[in-house]
């Protein structure tokens, strides 16, 4: 029963995001895409509200968090003043390919659900820190400084971005206790959310059947990697959701403008506050999107403010909390920043390939790559997902180069998960139409 309540509390996320997504300019998205986008925006706003409350030394409670996040979502509508009403593309009944793609995506979600319930996909990081922190924060009704400062708890990485532990703490507060199985089930739940939202978001950039097939490829890729790399209950699946939807939004021809940019910006903020690698993803995707769009310097400045403003504000609140409490002042990971060990470069490449190849024989990485190669020459917008994938991969190698004693073990348990957005970007690039 508590597990059901814990999961049901996540319904607050789309509810919180709905005042913003109810704006007429978001009418371009089909119903389920709009619901999931509301949930993703809601997660960013709930987490931000909890960080703000912690910063102000105010106790967390379901009502106060929901109220503050809803006020923020409503307030953001001001930024959409003057944006015209839009409506979703006329819906035709789905053809065989679309139905088949939907069925395949459902099978992948069911596989993720069964693997999670069967104890075959749970991340140890759920117990080691995501869940442990959320449980403690819910009990403390805020970010528990004594808990994070305990020298025996340094493995919990006090500086880690707060979204997942905040949202889990929110659900724990609503349910009355932390429910481990419910937290693990966020993997199939978030995967299902992606399966529901992505066809409608991609539908703006390609045909309905190609959008459905690409969505199925993305969902099955993440199901495969998620099951084999044990991501249930950690921050990886929420990160994949935010990153994939943000990129898909930016690929749409109607992306430029306050509506598209603000929503993508909120998703980037969610990604950057879910995991460390969400920040380089957001920055590189924004830079590439602006470069591909062109426009005057003033237009680019306005768009970059919309795209990266929410991330800057969310991270400012988090680092403001860390600095003001003398808890952390930077991301530290496993070495001193810029203390690069180039002697490990060759070993890093080999370890990444070995680790990825050991995850389902690497098929979840190879198949989207083959789809991309088989799609032939793509439109120039394909540079957005491909460039972002390259930037993310570069960032990950850069972090591995900081390891003093050789990162082989670190790569072994992290690479299959952290490189998962790369095949997703391959799938999205393959869907980019060639310009006439």
């Amino acid at each position, binding site marked *: 029963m508590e597990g059901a309540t814990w999961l049901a509390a996540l319904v607050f996320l789309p509810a919180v995001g709905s005042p913003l997504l109810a704006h007429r300019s978001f009418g371009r998205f089909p119903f389920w895409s709009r619901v999931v986008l509301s949930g993703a925006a809601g997660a960013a706003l709930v987490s931000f509200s909890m960080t703000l409350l912690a910063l102000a030394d105010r106790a967390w409670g379901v009502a106060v968090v929901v109220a503050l996040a809803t006020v923020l979502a409503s307030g953001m509508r001001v930024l959409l003043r003057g944006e015209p009403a839009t409506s979703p593309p006329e819906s035709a009944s789905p053809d065989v*390919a679309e139905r088949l793609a939907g069925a*395949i*995506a459902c099978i992948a979600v069911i596989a993720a659900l069964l693997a999670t319930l069967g104890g075959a996909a749970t991340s140890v990081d759920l117990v080691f820190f995501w869940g442990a922190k959320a449980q403690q924060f819910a009990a403390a009704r805020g970010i528990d400084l004594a808990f994070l400062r305990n020298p025996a*708890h340094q493995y919990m990485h006090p500086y880690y971005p707060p979204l997942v532990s905040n949202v889990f703490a929110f659900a724990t507060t609503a349910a009355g206790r932390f429910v481990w199985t419910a937290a693990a089930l966020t993997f199939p739940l978030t995967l299902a959310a992606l399966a529901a939202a992505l066809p409608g978001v991609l539908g703006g950039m390609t045909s309905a059947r*190609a959008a459905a097939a690409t969505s199925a*490829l993305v969902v*099955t890729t993440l199901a*495969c990697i998620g099951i084999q790399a*044990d991501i249930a209950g950690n921050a990886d699946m929420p990160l994949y959701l935010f990153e994939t939807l943000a990129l898909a939004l930016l690929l749409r021809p109607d992306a430029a403008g306050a509506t598209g940019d603000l929503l993508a910006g909120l998703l980037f903020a969610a990604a950057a506050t879910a995991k460390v690698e969400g920040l380089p993803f957001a920055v590189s995707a924004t830079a590439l999107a602006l470069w591909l769009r062109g426009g005057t310097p003033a237009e680019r400045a306005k768009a970059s403010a919309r795209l990266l403003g929410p991330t800057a504000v969310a991270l400012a609140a988090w680092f403001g909390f860390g600095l003001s409490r003398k808890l952390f002042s930077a991301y530290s990971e496993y070495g001193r920043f810029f203390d690069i060990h180039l002697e490990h470069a060759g070993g890093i490449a080999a370890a990444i390939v070995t680790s990825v190849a050991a995850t389902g024989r690497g098929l979840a990485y190879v198949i989207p790559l083959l789809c991309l190669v088989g799609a032939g020459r793509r439109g120039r917008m394909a540079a957005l997902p491909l460039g972002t994938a390259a930037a993310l991969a570069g960032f990950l190698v850069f972090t591995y180069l900081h390891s003093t004693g050789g990162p082989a073990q670190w790569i072994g348990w992290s690479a299959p998960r952290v490189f998962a957005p790369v095949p997703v970007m391959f799938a999205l690039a393959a869907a980019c139409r060639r310009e006439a």
Partner: protein
Amino acid sequence: MLRPRSIADPALAPLVGSALLAALALWHVPWRQGLERPATLYDHSSAAALAPAYALLTAAALGIPPGASVTVRAEPPDAELEMWYHRFAVALLPGRRAIPSALYGAFLAPEVWKDAEYLVVVGPKPSPAPGRLLFETPQGSVWLRDR
């Protein structure tokens, strides 16, 4: 099955690819256990070696009162495992004071944890008995220590 529009139908490759990956995802579901619910969330994961500790600590949560101090040890002693067990104890025994017996793969001096009121031992029962046996499960035992 698909409408024969053209050989370059953009839906074809991702559909075939996703069907292969869906089959692969199903392949990795632990079907052999049937409808039986696993004892822990980790029984068939890559962290299956930690599943006994998870099960024992979940059971111990019912017998160790809030506010009590507790240390988790492995039998035979193993610094690496005891480090992981401590992390499990922090998460699965909320409201108790989990004291580590090992950190980062190295044992801590026994003085660090000698005052722990409860001892959870993953594995066979230790000898000599470290206190009064509260209960045991197939995964280990829970003791109220002599102090």
